């Protein structure tokens, strides 16, 4: 009783908030206001071009002539087109081989850099270089390296007497395919190595000491401690790497333009080739749209197969 009486005596005079203040206190209004800029940007620069691309894929639009809806005719045409299938094959092959190469070499580099080396930070900076350089610039460098006449590799091999003639890097289909994969691996290693190095550094050294006392050999420490602990970050980095490699354009287009005889076309370069220089906007868009299932598959794969492990934070214990 007495406390109630005391508290009424102390009640502060409340001021009515202004209409504007009350509006900003309204949660629904606030949500809309805060989302608007982000949604606007996404709609303008992501959803609209994507939607337009998908729509184009179902038309026969060419540059300079508005198209009409033709249903899946573009896809039917592509289904019969051996160049399209060759691009699909090379996209998958390029992604698979380059990813394996990048991760094998990147992991190896990351493990090296995680040791106590002299001038470690300088080494790390150097390793990042291929990634910092603009792709087109490194593509031009590779273009020279792979040049039929002026290739530095051919020159070195010939100077050393190991070869009589220059190496053929990009003038026959398979050597061109492998050369492009090598360039992509070179460019992709830093990203993988630095990301995995960050992952390695989160592993507590005392785990290795415990494993050492438990009798683990270096290989067993890698197999039972490093690798499983690296799995979560490996999964994320690999997803990104696969997506970026599959959608690669610059490297291939600047070095070979899809040649020789269309043997090194990726789906992205073929889509561009058909759509812009070729003028067949509808057909180019259809090729680009055909990439979507592959990307969705890659994302789902990493989502389910490489998803969070049970031992990680934030899952129920069942």
């Amino acid at each position, binding site marked *: 009783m007495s406390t109630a009486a005391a508290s009424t005596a102390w009640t502060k005079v409340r001021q009515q908030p202004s209409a504007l203040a009350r509006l900003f206190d309204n949660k629904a209004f606030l949500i809309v206001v805060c989302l608007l800029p982000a949604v606007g940007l996404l709609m303008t620069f992501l959803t609209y071009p994507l939607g337009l691309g998908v729509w184009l894929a179902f038309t026969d639009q060419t540059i300079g002539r508005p198209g009409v809806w033709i249903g899946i005719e573009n896809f039917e045409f592509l289904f019969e087109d051996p160049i399209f299938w060759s691009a699909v094959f090379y996209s998958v092959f390029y992604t698979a081989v380059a990813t394996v190469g990048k991760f094998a070499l990147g992991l190896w580099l990351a493990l090296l850099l995680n040791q106590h080396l002299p001038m470690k930070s300088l080494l790390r900076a150097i390793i990042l270089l291929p990634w910092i350089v603009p792709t087109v610039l490194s593509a031009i460098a590779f273009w020279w390296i792979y040049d039929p006449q002026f290739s530095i590799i051919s020159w070195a091999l010939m100077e050393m007497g190991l070869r009589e003639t220059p190496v053929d890097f990009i003038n026959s289909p398979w050597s061109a395919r492998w050369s492009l994969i090598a360039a992509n691996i070179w460019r992709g290693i830093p990203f993988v190595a630095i990301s995995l190095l960050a992952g390695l550094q989160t592993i507590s050294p005392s785990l290795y000491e415990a494993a*050492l*006392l438990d009798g683990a050999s270096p290989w067993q420490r890698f197999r039972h401690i490093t690798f499983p602990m690296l799995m979560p970050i490996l999964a994320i980095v690999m997803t990104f790497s696969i997506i970026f490699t599959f959608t690669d354009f610059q490297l291939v287009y600047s070095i070979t333009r899809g040649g020789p005889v269309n043997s090194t076309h990726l789906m992205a370069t073929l889509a561009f080739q058909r759509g812009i220089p070729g003028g067949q906007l509808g057909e180019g868009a259809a090729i680009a749209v055909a990439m979507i299932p592959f990307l969705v598959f890659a994302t789902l794969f990493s989502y389910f197969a490489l998803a969070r492990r049970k*031992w990680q934070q934030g899952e129920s214990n069942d």
Partner: protein
Amino acid sequence: MATVSVRDARKNFGSTPILHGVNVEIGDGEFVVLVGPSGCGKSTLLRMIAGLENISGGEIAIGGRVVNTVPPKDRDIAMVFQNYALYPHMTVRENMAFSMKLAKAPREVMEEEVQRAAKILGLDALLDRYPRQLSGGQRQRVAMGRAIVRHPQVFLFDEPLSNLDAKLRVQMRSEIRELQQRLATTTIYVTHDQIEAMTMADQIVVMNAGRIEQAGAPLALYDRPANTFVAGFIGSPAMNLVPGEISDGGFRAQGGALLPLPPATPANVATYGIRPEHLVLAEDGIEARLVVVEPTGSETQVAMRIAETPLVGAFRERITGRPGETIRVKPDLSLVHLFGADGRRL
């Protein structure tokens, strides 16, 4: 089960000497506690015994075999880390069985050992959990389980209780002690907490700045500390160590107090030591001014001043005086510790 001998062990990190020649003899089945302030080199010594740090000088022998160049896994030791170092991606069962799995032990043996350790430690119901699903105390037990299943010759503990709350710490203290007595495995236990050392050890080794100050049974260290460092480190509340000199038929402390001396005292006393619990209230005592009175229920701790000399007392009696009032105290003369100018016991 084995003896452990550390002979003139030295350790440098780069050019910085950290351990300056340490000698410890540990008997078979003994529970030895290395205690000392933070940074004195306890962990370093333990890690040298484990083989996680190389030995810059001297010799370490386990069970009579010099192990200086023996790799950790062949030293037949098991270690419990301060942060437990449980493998986060393995269940409790897998954590405990890991060493056996590496040694390619048969499945039945692994399961049997894990079950046995789980029973001892009360982990039966938790075997399929991951470390993150365990409380601090449970993780601690898993770390011990991982050590037990290996039947090592020596257990090494590095501050295993410092991440637990006070109550759990007291409980785990007696659990570890009980476990050690049951398994009778030689144990080296590192802590900075002298109460842990006093309550658990057969033998305490007090370290300071890379040297051993004194080694012995807990009560021997309490009763006869070899120097002022051990005197101040062992015992809680800490011993009063009062600098001063002999004059006027007593010990004239800095700050002016004249403290009585036991009979037949040497003349070169530089520090007068008396434990708070060895000061007694007496009508014929010295007048002391109360500064702070802290009743704990079972006893009363009192910070006081005799003239300007600060002293701490711990009395069984309840003291109702307020700060500024005076009481009369005197030291129990049979329990006074006297130290020379070099800090050594006289």
